[in-house]
């Protein structure tokens, strides 16, 4: 029976949740995994809630439906707190990684997860993005934070693979590439919980 890891990304239109899912998928594929990465397309507008998914497995993945029980959930925007149930469908050993300047204990309290066995991790990805990329686009640092929190993939490999991807996309803007790679590394190191 096919076993696969499922990940759900919550963001707002313009924050790059879809791109993060695609980049993670590509990095996992480069590491020899079978992958899926896909957004839930709706009437997206800048700032509207967006959901994207990953499936990662050592075996071919045949399912083609939405992810319902993600082990890992990544939240790019903490202003969702109270309006979106991030933990929907998460198993007891799930990991929730949130972009916020709050500590894991404080977020756990805010989310009413004091009694939950779900691990809550936090990182100030927006600040990291501002410091490194110069814009508040928290998607690449949140990919680093997810890997820091879960050891899902080897961070050096991910940075190397992302570098190759960004070099194609931003070949005339080397500062964007360096900033994103630095953001991934910093969030990987700074994620707490």
């Amino acid at each position: 029976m096919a076993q696969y890891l499922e990940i759900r990304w919550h963001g707002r239109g313009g924050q790059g949740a879809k791109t993060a899912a695609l980049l993670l998928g590509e990095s996992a594929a480069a590491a020899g995994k079978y992958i899926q990465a896909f957004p839930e397309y709706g009437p997206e507008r800048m700032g509207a809630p967006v959901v994207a998914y990953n499936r990662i497995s050592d075996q071919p993945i045949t399912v083609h439906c939405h992810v319902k029980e993600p082990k890992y959930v990544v939240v790019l925007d903490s202003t969702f707190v109270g309006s979106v149930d991030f933990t929907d469908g998460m198993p007891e050993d799930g990991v929730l990684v949130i972009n916020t300047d709050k500590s894991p204990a404080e977020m756990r309290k805010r989310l009413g997860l004091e009694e939950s066995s779900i691990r809550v991790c936090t990182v100030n990805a927006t600040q990291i993005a501002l410091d490194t990329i110069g814009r508040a686009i928290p998607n690449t640092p949140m990919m680093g934070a997810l890997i820091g929190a879960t050891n899902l993939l080897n961070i050096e490999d991910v940075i190397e693979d992302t570098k190759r991807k960004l070099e194609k996309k931003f070949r005339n803007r080397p500062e964007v590439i360096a900033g994103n790679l630095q953001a991934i590394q910093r969030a990987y190191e700074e994620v707490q919980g």
Partner: protein
Amino acid sequence: MVSKTVAYTGNEAIAHGMKQINPDVIAAYPITPQTEIVQIYSTFVADGLVDTEFVTVESEHSAMSAVIGAAAGGARAMTATSSQGLAYMHEVVYIAASMRLPIVMAVANRALSGPINIHCDHSDTMGARDSGWIQLYSENAQEAYDNLIQAVRIAEHPDVQLPVMVCLDGFIISHALETVTLNDDAFVKEFVGIYKPKHHLLDPENPVTMGPLDLFDFYFEHKRDQAEAMRKAKDVIIAVGQEYGAKTGRGYGLFETYQLDDAETAIVVMSSTAGTAKAVIDELRAQGQKVGLLKLRSFRPFPYAELAEALKHLKAVAVLDRADSFNAFGAPLFVQTRAALYDLPQRPTMINYIYGLGGRDCDMSQIARVYADLAEIVKSNQTGEIVRYLGVRE
């Protein structure tokens, strides 16, 4: 052959396949969720990676008209569309088939308006099912890519000379990144070969007329010829699928079966939902339930005899249609599958589910419910409702 495994969306896989085929002419108009295919292809043209004459047109009607003109002139011509785009080119779609032009068109399946919806169902290509085009449906990005390459050979085969639609589920496959194994360029070039049409308009040594008036004297014979070409397409699809399999390790037939041989109940379905059904079958098999799947690849030609043979041992079968044919006593795939089994001395009980319209997610619980319903039918020996709706609010 050297192959390469990459992470590609369905649209990227199709565009890459088109690049390797390197057709003479592509004419297309953008429509979600197909747009990326020709958008990516246009970058190949701009970067000088292909020799294709890329014709930007003002509508899908013009896109199909342009590829018809190109193909009539002896070119290998391709296009891509979805939903309203296919609907808009409807009248010329029939002309492409009746002129026996081996055009290949990728269709990212999408619901038809209204209400307006950009997501997947098969209403668009079901509306073209009697247009005379071959229709191949793809479970995932890999199959979309493989089907596209094979479609060229099938369409251009002297016994066939019919256009082919390569269908992939909009968004679910077109926009989802998946693991895809690509053939090397040289293999694809050799596999599709050089197109040498028997007749074309730019051959002054052998002048022909194409598309003239054809009244009660010969129109009927030409339609009869189309039916015969579609009948012959079946063996060509099998032969090309076998040859492709021998060279790539990924063989194709008219349909794929999964855990069907010893199954008591089964689902018949096309495209991406077949993959979800496979995962449900794995779970139910682990519990000892004898459930199986038949995933239809070739909807036109419809392999009725082969389907009857493959399904005859079952006690109950559910056919899942991602399109409705309102109050026609079942949707197209069901009606045809049921008709195909009518002449069997002993037939399985058959029910129809219309599912997933407008992109409604068809998850594993919905598929599991279908198998539970089939088990109940077998146990109670009561068919109940024959045409049902899956995953809809009633």
